């Protein structure tokens, strides 16, 4: 978080300029620096610096949470989604947990996309919740989804209802994928007509397709 004028009382333009001379640009830089040393070098009042630090910490620091409270919160808010396959559920300790990331790994043709389609179909059919499917491989087939859905519900109306709950987007590079994920994170998911967003699962097939073109090489800072 970069230091800006007016972020807190006492943080004026002159103060920011003075801090810049000592290469203090962000909130983290300021609160981790030694206030006494800084006040000497920048010729700023020690009291001002301490006051600014206190306000910034109050604004930006995260607060610790009690372990028992966290446990209670998890118990009440976590849902377990069945994958539609009993043995797979058993392996996953009764299914996919909300709030968790499950990674599927396998050799080509081993069935990863099929599991993804099965999970999407199950969440949409049985649990009647929305699913987001981010496809980067071109492996999604709506007719295959319909085939799986048909084995779960019998009437055409129910089958189409289930398919309407599956939202698909195609991305082909890492930046588009990150953009989509950021959109989901900030609540940009298209709402269902009832007004409540009941998104329960996000399926990404696959991460390999968008990451392999950028991983490796001379860049050591990721991208």
């Amino acid at each position, binding site marked *: 978080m970069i230091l800006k004028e007016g972020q807190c009382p006492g943080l004026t333009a002159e103060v920011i300029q003075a801090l810049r001379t000592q290469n203090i640009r962000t909130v983290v830089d300021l609160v981790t620096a030694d206030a006494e040393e800084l006040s000497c070098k920048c010729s700023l009042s020690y009291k001002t610096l301490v006051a600014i630090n206190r306000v910034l910490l109050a604004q930006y620091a995260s607060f610790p949470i009690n372990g028992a409270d966290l446990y209670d919160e998890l118990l009440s808010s976590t849902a377990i989604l069945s994958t539609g396959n009993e043995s797979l559920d058993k392996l996953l300790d009764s299914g996919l947990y909300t709030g968790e990331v499950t990674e599927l790994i396998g050799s080509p043709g081993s069935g990863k996309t099929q599991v993804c389609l099965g999970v999407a179909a199950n969440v949409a059919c049985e649990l009647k919740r929305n699913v987001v499917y981010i496809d980067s491989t071109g492996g999604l087939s709506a007719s*295959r989804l319909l085939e799986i859905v048909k084995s779960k519900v019998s009437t055409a109306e129910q089958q189409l209802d289930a398919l309407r709950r599956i939202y698909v987007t195609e991305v082909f590079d890492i*930046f588009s994928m990150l953009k989509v994920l950021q*959109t989901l994170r900030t609540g940009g998911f298209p709402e269902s007509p009832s007004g409540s967003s009941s998104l329960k699962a996000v399926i990404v097939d696959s991460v390999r397709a968008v990451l392999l073109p950028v991983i490796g090489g001379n860049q050591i800072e990721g991208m």
Partner: protein
Amino acid sequence: MQREVASLALAPTIKAKLIGAGFVRVGDLHEVSAAELRIEAGISLQESTEVLQTVFPRSHEKGSETRWMKATEILEQEKSCRSISTFCAALDTVLGGGIMTGKMIEICGTPGVGKTQLCIQLAVNTQIPASFGGVEGHSVYIDTEGSFLVDRVVDVAEAALQHCKQQHGKTGQLGALENFTLETILSNIFFFRCHDYVELLAQVHLLPDFLFKHPKVRFLVVDSIAYPFRHEFEDLSVRTRLLHGLAQKLLQLASQHNIAIVLTNHMTIRLEQNNSALVPALGESWGHVSPQRLVLYWQGKQRFASLTKSSRQKEQMVPFQITSHGFHDVQLFQSQVTASISSATSNTTTVNARKRCRVEDDDEHEDCL
């Protein structure tokens, strides 16, 4: 939670300068003008304008919004998508109607089994008029091996015309064949010869412009994608990056322009402890790329095509043959067909030893097809 600057689509040097200047999250760039950013981060005015445009795109810019589609809409799209026939009815059935537009398929096989023949057949068949059940589109043929022979295309095209004329005779469709002649077939196949991987990468890079100028293209083949990448790379990680980047670009073109993409691949030997197996070339990481894979192989004197990877169709294999007329079904007596299929089934495990065939579930399967 705000997006980090490091995850934006900007050059790594610019990102490093931005982060060094303290702009770590997108929120840090709020209300900063291009001129201020130039001074703060030490980048040029043009670069800082570019940064601000990337971070805060104007809402009317195309492609700035994520496009969500419901599975029902995709189902409608798939139903209206046509597929390109291979002229081998058995193979068309295995593929779910033929080679689908908008999707990618990889065709692997040993030399001489018929990959290029199939590609030529598909390049011709793409142009079959809609009234004959075809896609009525143009074809792009990217040749990296030099195996494309125009004489052969002429033979295949003439045979296809004959076939359609016979059909026209049966159904009496007038005028449909006016625009489907040898001249038009040959002129609607756009041929590119790439001698090495650099030319291939450049060609694919230029394809978006080409496809905008030629919106009727419905089929694109790279024959083969393996050849330019098998010999020149000491650093395999570079090869992996380039191959996957290339594949993603092609997938994007397939989806955006509704084109069927075919990539042909070679076969290579994988040495295991006590035996060796014939597997598709370019490594296991390449195996993940294409959502569908068709392996062509010999069984004695008979050629077979086996769908070994598909997200839509069941894995199956069928016999085919190649004549002077092109790619065709096999006309055998029923008993011979059954015999060759049963002997081939016991050997399909060598084609893909790690897979179990999908369990037959006739009732549901019939309802869905």
